[in-house]
């Protein structure tokens, strides 16, 4: 028979334990989040030309410094942001966005509707913007039912206060964090916006180190010098073995080979096809990507398009050899890759091994540091990592169209499939694998709730109790 006081002791212990667990899971304010990323961001301003590819990390920073008219939740649904509500006509050509009031810039000045209009005008081609009091009227030439999604995903549609004179510091925003210190390309320190309309973020500060290699990030994470880092798939297993937290997005980054068909060495379509047929994508997926992502011969991942499996990704060496059986032995073909991208280099080297089986010699070659996709880099083939934007196929197609794809965001998935099939039939663009975005963090980081397309919601994070 047990003593009643003993029962009370046990009961109180259980209550204390439950309370302590609940306390540990409950968000708490304070602390500095140390983030490292590979991109060396020189400016937070949107690119003015498609030839200037933006680093992936810039969107992650823009998102917490600046606000959009419309936001996205983790399911990809549009949510009110600076626009408190919106409505449209039957034809989806006239939209009106009711602007939120009492919004302040990071310097405390109020955000006016005129400033919203000014900020959006440059990045809204094909739209007629007009202010009607605190309502922004948008007129379109063509129907656009997904206009809120566009406002939520377009990389340039952030509300920022443009400076009259050129400045080395980023433009002011209204987002959850304001820029406390800016060192272009190397470091940015962000501070919580106490007056944020969505509520003060949990973190006091975010310290972002830029231009850190994948290896350095991993080391810093292991040495507890960083709380949040980007990872390559090859490092994920090791991180898991060491008890670190790992988050993987859906496959959102396409690795592909882009042939420069103007180059004599790869002008022959049979050669390009033979290369495409010789590649063992599944081996790349299983070994180099450590089973993350997916092997693909399509431009879009299966989760987004639903038809990716229709494109055969398996190698066919016999067919590849037949395609070039009557062609003269080609000279070595140079394949360029970003020298800072170790994963891309591994994939290219594996492709070179595969292609050697059909008698074609590929020479993996590091591209110059400042190469751009739109300019001739001297390579016969360039290995690319292309990240899809947005939660829907139409958004992804819209982004892809700006580079090479022929479809538009307004075509149906069936039409996209047909266009893609036609686009890939001349083998100037050979998809290889889709890889996810991998993020590793220390054991104290809480609140990670990233959407599948890889967006970071740093304003939702907090640090656990044991973090000093």
């Amino acid at each position, binding site marked *: 028979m047990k003593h009643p006081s003993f029962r009370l002791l046990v009961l109180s212990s259980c209550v204390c334990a439950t309370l302590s667990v609940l306390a540990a899971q409950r968000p708490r304010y304070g602390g500095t989040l140390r983030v490292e990323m590979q991109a060396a961001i020189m400016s937070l301003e949107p690119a003015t030309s498609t030839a200037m590819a933006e680093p992936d990390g810039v969107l992650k920073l823009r998102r917490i410094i600046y606000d959009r008219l419309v936001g996205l939740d983790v399911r990809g649904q549009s949510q009110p942001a600076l626009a408190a509500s919106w409505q449209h006509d039957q034809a989806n050509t006239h939209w009106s966005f009711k602007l939120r009031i009492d919004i302040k810039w990071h310097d405390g000045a109020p955000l006016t509707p005129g400033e919203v209009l000014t900020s959006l005008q440059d990045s809204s081609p094909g739209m007629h913007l007009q202010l009607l009091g605190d309502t922004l009227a948008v007129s379109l030439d063509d129907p656009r039912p997904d206009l809120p999604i566009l406002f939520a995903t377009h990389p340039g549609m952030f509300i920022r206060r443009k400076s009259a004179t050129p400045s080395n510091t980023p433009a002011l925003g209204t987002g959850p964090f304001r820029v406390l210190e800016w060192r272009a390309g190397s470091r940015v320190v962000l501070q919580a916006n106490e007056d944020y309309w969505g509520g003060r973020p949990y973190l006091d500060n975010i310290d972002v180190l830029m231009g850190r290699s994948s290896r350095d990030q991993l080391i810093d994470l292991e040495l507890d010098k960083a709380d949040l880092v980007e990872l390559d798939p090859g490092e994920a297993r090791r991180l898991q073995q060491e008890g670190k937290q790992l988050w993987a997005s859906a496959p959102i980054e396409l690795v592909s080979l882009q042939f420069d068909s103007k180059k004599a060495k790869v002008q022959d379509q049979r050669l390009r096809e033979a290369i495409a047929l010789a590649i063992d994508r599944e*081996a790349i997926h299983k*070994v180099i990507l450590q089973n993350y992502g997916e092997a693909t011969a399509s431009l879009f991942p299966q989760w987004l398009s639903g038809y990716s499996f229709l494109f055969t990704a398996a190698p066919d060496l016999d067919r590849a050899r037949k395609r070039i059986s009557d062609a003269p032995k080609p000279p070595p073909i140079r394949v360029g890759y970003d020298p800072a991208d170790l994963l891309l280099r591994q994939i290219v080297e*594996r492709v070179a*091994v595969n292609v050697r089986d059909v008698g074609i010699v590929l020479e993996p070659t590091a591209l110059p540091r400042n190469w751009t996709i739109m300019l001739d880099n001297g390579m016969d083939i360039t290995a690319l990592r292309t990240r899809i934007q947005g939660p829907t196929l139409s958004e992804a197609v819209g982004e892809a169209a700006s580079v090479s794809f022929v479809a538009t965001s307004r075509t149906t998935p069936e039409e996209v499939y047909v266009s893609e099939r036609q686009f890939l039939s001349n083998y100037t663009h050979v998809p290889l694998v889709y890889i996810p975005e991998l993020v590793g963090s220390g054991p104290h980081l809480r609140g990670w709730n990233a959407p599948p397309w890889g967006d970071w919601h740093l304003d939702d994070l907090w640090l656990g109790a044991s973090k000093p």
Partner: protein
Amino acid sequence: MSYRTKLLLLFAVTVGVTVTIVAWTASITMRRAFERVNNERTAALVTQFQREFTRRGVEVTSQVEGIAHAKDTLRIAMEVARPNPDYAALVNEAGSLASAYQLEFLELLADDGAIVSSAQWPARFGYKESWITTTTGWLTQGAFLRQEDLPNGSALALMAVRAVIVGEKRMYVVGGKKLGSEFLASLTLPEGMRALLYRNSSTENAQGTLTDGAGTAISEERLLPLITAVRQRPAEQAQNIAWTKDAASAEAFHALPLLGPHQEVLGMFLVGSSLAEEVLLARRIRSLALIAGGMGILLGMILSTWAAAHVTKPLEQLAGAANDVSAGLWNTHVPVASRDEVGRLADAFNRMTEQLTEQRERLVQAERVAAWRELARRLAHELKNPLFPLQITVENLLRAREMSEDQFEEVFRESTGTLLAELAKLRAIISRFSDFAKMPAPQLQPVNLNELVTAAIRVFEAQFTAPGKPAITKQLDLAKRLDDIQADPELLQRAVQNLILNAIDAMPSGGTLRLRTASLPSGVQLDVSDTGTGLTREECERLFTPYYTTKQHGTGLGLAIVQSVVSDHQGKISVESEPEKGTTFRIILPFRATSAEPGNQVQEPASEPVEKVVRL
């Protein structure tokens, strides 16, 4: 060729041949010495290479065994031996192990030869290395040479294979080190030598690569014949390679084949030994030989000049003196400057000329005495003939004083007539001798010899056909075209007439007188031949001596006058005669003669232009 030139040539040839032989011998000796040293140094380097090769092989084998026995390797082997192994988790293991064990090449192969992990070519995971399963015996074998495929080509590697056995399955550990420039750099190279490593291309018919210890790629074009030869016959071979036109750039290369486990030629170890020192030394020897040869020849010239001054000069003086003697200067002397053979020769020459001069003087004296005796005899003979009638006549006159006046008158008249006649003879004799003594200088003018001969013989036409005398047949054989000569026609005609007269006198029983003229390149020729009694050798030799005659009533001045005339015209006269067959006098006259003082032929008989040919 003069003695001096011969001496110079002899010196030059002697010095040249000597220097050439010495230089050649020195070059051969030097080359052999260099070859021997090069061979020894090459052998030492090859031994060093083989020792280092073996040492590294043992080291590689030990390292691979270490990996095979490591716990991590066992863990990997256990993962690989599982029914559905996850190679993705193992793909980077080889790199870590290779780094830990300091191996440049490491591959972990599954039981079927599939690459689980590759340190040197990570992207080759999943590919099968069939050579590991098709051949047995790897596990007990030491290190071996292998052509290892790499992303950017291939490399020669010292490899070893060991296995980790888990249950019934094996996992092969294939590791090794590159055999390249670092390996070469570890060798201690003697000065002037270098070591190269040639690696066959992994693809057929493609060129291999040639590197040195610094990792510098070297063009194999010049070495290709040697490399090809070693490929065809895998054994150590040597060849000299000239890199540029300069022979000093040449190197003596020894190539040692590097064989794989199946005795296939995977590469070559080449040892190059610079021939620069040898070539430079050979050049120096050649230069010295040339300088020595040149100086020797120069010295030879100086010595030959000196020798000529001391040896050939007396000889030349002797030769000159001999020429003078032959030209008639018999009292020529040469200085005697030494007591050697040349000096004795000069002394003998001087004695010879002295004796010749004395003999000549004695001969001249004897001839002069003989001539005077002959003259005296002739004068006595010539004068005796008129004297005897004079004596008789005078005695008749003395006796006639006792006769009657009429008889005396008659005798007186006859006697005075006889006396006058004999005195006239005496005067004639004296006149002839006087004429010979006063031969006039020739007055030169153009004379045609044919015309002169024709005119001369015309005087004797009557004698040829005189009745009661044996007939003499005249035969003129005159040249059709005969250029004029510069001569005195009177003197020349007198000389020709003397010869004709002599010929007539030589044919008392008749015969043929033949006169023949001919044109010569430098003058004209006249032959006067008879078919008379001929002359003896002694007569021929004395024929032109004044006052010598073979005739009963001759004065001995006819032929002397002929000789004097011919001599005054710078001509020559000769005689050919055979007893009982006849005599031919031949006169050769130049086209242009210079005036000369007549008559001292008697005093200088040696200079007489007379040739005497006697056929017996």
